[in-house]
């Protein structure tokens, strides 16, 4: 069998054929079954807005902290001398009611 004959045979045996309709349906269904986020959010997820997103998150956290502090929703504990040690290491075991 010469080169041309083999090539022709390979073209016939291995040549392209249409994808089965079931596969065509599966491929067409990919965007529906795996929806992508569109618009600004997609840009952010694609990495273009990561820096802007980080700055916005930092500003939001700062604003929330300022608001919590100014409205006393996060009370500041006023410690007396010696209390800090107790808070750090827990109450003296001798004072606890052990079973």
């Amino acid at each position, binding site marked *: *069998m010469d*080169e041309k004959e*083999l090539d022709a*045979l*390979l*073209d*016939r*045996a*291995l*040549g*392209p*054929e*249409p*994808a*089965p309709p*079931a*596969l*065509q349906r*599966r*491929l*067409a269904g*990919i*965007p*529906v079954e*795996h*929806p*992508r*986020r*569109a618009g600004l959010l*997609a840009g952010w*997820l*694609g990495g273009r807005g990561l820096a802007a997103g980080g700055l916005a998150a930092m500003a939001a956290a700062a604003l929330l902290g300022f608001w919590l502090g100014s409205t006393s929703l996060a009370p500041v504990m006023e410690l007396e001398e010696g209390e800090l040690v107790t808070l750090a290491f827990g109450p003296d075991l001798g004072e606890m009611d052990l079973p």
Partner: protein
Amino acid sequence: MEAGAEEEDLLLAAAGRGEGAAFRRLTERHGDRAFSVALRITGRRGDAEDVVQEAFLRAWQHAARWRPGRARFSTWLHRVVVNLCLDRARAAARERPAPMEAAMELADPAPGAEQRLAQQERERAVLEAVRALPERQRAALALVHAGGLGQAEVAEVLELSVGAVESLLSRARRSLRERLATAEER
């Protein structure tokens, strides 16, 4: 870059923005050849369908990160298809070694055509011989004859030099000729 490639870059950019219609254009354009390549490498329609679906799913998920003008979409797609096929073939070989004489599946024959049946017998012998080739040789033949790729693009897909692809194809054809001659002598 060719006009077709530029158009595909636009379709991919649109798919990256979540436009399903643009993505479907890509599946219509490349689905048949991707399926044929996968079928000729795996030899099983079910596996080929799964591989092609997985490859296009990856294309959809990564479309937003596509960099236009750097490579052809068909090259990328075929590389993913070939790699998925080879992964499956290796996994299957670990589980159950494939018999060398296993026939690949052919398309349904046209009803009532005797000539077509005789031709199919010959094609079946070719497919059996192809199935017995080492997987890289089989992939190279599938990319040329089922995918319609030139040797330069096959080299890109397989990440080889053009010379290495020529050598791969030459060894594959020599091996096929020997196997077919042996089969005809029987």
